[in-house]
């Protein structure tokens, strides 16, 4: 499998000389195409900072990040937004759907800003909606949908452009357990049938148990790595809990 993401010795500092916070401290890892990777860690461990740096929303202090072979740390702002809309898909905790647009239009927006033709837009939106089982809500506005539906629409928007990498930041954070389960199953579908590469930040062990590989972060450093391999989800979940308790920190966050 080809390598899609390479994080090389990345550092991110906040604050000034007198009061320096190292949010990321010499962190390195790679993600291959078609992987479903989880990033776990307690609050303040730097997992969201990591995601922001990879998603080019934030800049690194030191080190390099390659996505699909491009060094994104050396891109100019204009190139960054181009890169973002062409290579990345985003799923946020609070959905970030535009409340003035219908579900269909929200998904289509990702394609219109790429200046795709109306025919292609129609075809792609319909296809992705079928995959995620949201064909029935396409005409609805966000305020008419449930949280789970909203997050699946957001996922559809993230995946419809065929991005190299889908980044999900606590996607189940605002969902009830049933909706969360449905969403995660959708992620599995996207990953398996469409071959989407997904990187998901979470601090929920159940959510993480859907991943193939989990990176644990503590104090801005890579603390541990867990690979699911042939384990069942239950077994994988137990392993995750073990690591999480090893991680120490704030357990209330974990369970």
């Amino acid at each position: 499998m080809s390598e899609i993401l390479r994080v090389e010795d990345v550092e991110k500092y906040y604050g000034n000389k007198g009061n320096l916070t190292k949010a990321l401290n010499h962190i390195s890892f790679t993600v291959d195409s078609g992987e479903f990777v989880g990033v776990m860690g307690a609050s303040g461990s730097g997992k969201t900072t990591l995601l922001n740096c990879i998603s080019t929303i934030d800049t690194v202090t030191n080190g390099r990040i390659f996505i699909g072979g491009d060094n994104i740390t050396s891109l100019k702002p204009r190139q960054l937004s181009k890169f973002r809309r062409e290579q990345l898909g985003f799923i946020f905790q609070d959905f970030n759907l535009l409340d003035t647009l219908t579900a269909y239009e929200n998904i289509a927006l990702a394609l219109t800003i790429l200046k795709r033709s109306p025919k292609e837009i129609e075809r792609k939106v319909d296809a992705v909606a079928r995959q995620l089982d949201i064909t029935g809500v396409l005409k609805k506005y966000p305020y008419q949908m449930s949280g789970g539906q909203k997050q699946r629409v957001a996922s559809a928007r993230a995946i419809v452009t065929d991005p190299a990498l889908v980044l999900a930041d606590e996607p189940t954070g605002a969902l009830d357990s049933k909706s969360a389960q449905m969403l995660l199953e959708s992620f599995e579908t996207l990953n398996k049938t469409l071959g989407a590469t997904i990187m998901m930040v979470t601090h929920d062990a159940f959510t993480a148990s859907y991943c193939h590989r989990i990176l644990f972060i503590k104090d801005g450093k890579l603390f541990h790595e867990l690979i699911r391999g042939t384990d069942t989800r239950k077994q994988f979940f137990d392993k995750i809990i073990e690591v999480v308790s090893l991680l120490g920190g704030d357990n209330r966050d974990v369970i």
Partner: protein
Amino acid sequence: MLSKLSFRNVKRSVKDYTVYFITLTFAVAIFFVFNSIGSQEIMNILNESQRPYLEILDNLMSSISVFISVVLGFLIIFANNFLIKKRKKELGIYTTLGMSKTGVSFILFIETLLIGVLSLVVGLLVGIFLSQGLSLLTAKLFDVAMTEFHFVFSLDAMVKTVLYFGVIFLCVILFNIITVSRYKLIDLIYGGRKNQTLKTRNLTVSVILFILSVISLGVAYYLIIQNKLMAFDSQFLWSLILGAVGTLLFFMSLSGFALKLVKSSKRLYFRKLNMFTMRQINSKVNTTFISMTMICLMLFLTIGMLSTGLGITTALKNDVKFLTPYGVTAQISYDSNEIKDDPDLKSMFEKSGIDFDQYIEDYYQYKIYQPGDTMENMMSEAGLEKLPDALQPWATMPVLSIGVSDLNRLLEMQGKDGNYQLEENQCILLTDKRDLDPYVNEYFAQNRTVPYNGQEYEIKLDSIQPEVVVNSYQSMNYLMVVLPDDKLDAGPNNEFTLMLNANFKGDAEKAEKVFADLNSGRSGLILKPEGYEGPFSQYVITQQDVINNTAGILTMAIFIGIYIGFVFLITSAAVLALQQLSEAADNRQRYLILRKIGVEEKMISQSIFIQIFIYFCIPLFLAIIHSVVGIYVANNVVAIFGKSDTWITSAFTGGLLLVVYGLYFLATYTGYKNILKSKSLV
């Protein structure tokens, strides 16, 4: 400590305050300029007969200023309210940190004071410069040359401006204190987060409403064009009602209609951010159509008032030279039964101590007869039922007559070649209205004779002659009959006025003043025959008098038009700008989402530009259409006063409007972008 905080706040939120500050500065400047008329340099240059007009204007401006200050007061309070709303959270934090409500009020007090003083100073500076320009404009309107230019500063106007705006700021401060004391802490802190339910109107309903609005506007236009502003009847009233309702429906449904239209073309709808932009406009119009309607009507009023006012006055000015061909016209009317012999006007002037020969080069005394005929009864006697519309306003005015040899002599005084000849029972028709005679010519071409003073006359010439036999302020003798000399007093009714036209010698300024005094009656009824006690009237109209009078009216109309129009304009523009800016704060989240999913900055700017452009332009656009119809109709009214091209004056109005409106547009656009930029992506 608190005042330090206030200073920092003002400095920090300069961007938020831009529109507020621009509005205050404009308001102060315009208020100062129009209240400083009385003490401007121009007052020293105008002569004694011109000055009273400016004094009247000065008084008028003072009265209007009271009304203006109320409008501005409301505007400033509205703008201030917008700023407070935006800073709810900040104020909430102060309170949570333990600051008392008095403390918070004090901060706001200092801030208001700071902004107030700053805008007063800048506004006054701008005003002082603008008032010099106003002096030049006044000089131009009165046709006097400003040989030397003095920089004049009006202390009175400054004191007045500071006083009026002081009161307004005091109201703002009071308002702030009340607002702060009524807020609950929870409202302040969660002020930014409100559960806004998105109201969406059914698009089909929008389309139906839009069609209805177009129909009602069309009917309103049709009715007003039929009405011609000639009668304030039910037709006129319906036109107003339908116009207002149509405008309201238009703004209510336009965005929905446009959305439906754009949606029908997938190529257009699914292109870049078009979809987002259209939805954005639609979601806003639903909540702001009432204010857009108000703004549209206000703009219409401004454009209409300025251009029609200017049109009427330029019409007057155009005609003034034509209507005053003589240096002076003196006229007395009295009961001719009591005084059998015609008094000699020249000797009467001399008797009252005016050295007639010293001033007058050439003069002629004659009579104008008024047998009581009106255009209406002349026409009906001739068997014609109804006058054409264009003649209606003059239908009941008396039709006067003059002898043909008198006319020839008067034309000679004007330096024209007067040799009209009439046979018995022939007449010539005159008019002092140059621009409307095609109507009348056409009318009399069908009818070759007219009845006048109990006798039938044959019309000698094919067309009506545009000639003026007396100085007058505006066209009065729409139709005048020139008769053979012996026919003048041959009818049953021989009422007449005694006239004298004269031209001044060489430098006429002194003579001008002597005779102008007679007009205003300052010297009493000096032309009254000795011993006569019956009904009597006396008019002395000098050429310069009429010119000054016209300039006076012109100046008044232009100044009042600009003053009120300008205030309306900044009110509309400021309300529009503030509304957009408060939308920007509410919509920050949406733009953040767009940026996160990788929309280019340029595309976002474009979308914002389109939204604000449409917001500013749609009310302006409809107001312009209203105005085009309005001016078209008003041209008929303006024509009563004389020949004028309202379109030219409209261009001036348009220029002024574009500058002010454009400034607000730019301030809004940059302000909008700044509000969105202030939050980073993370």
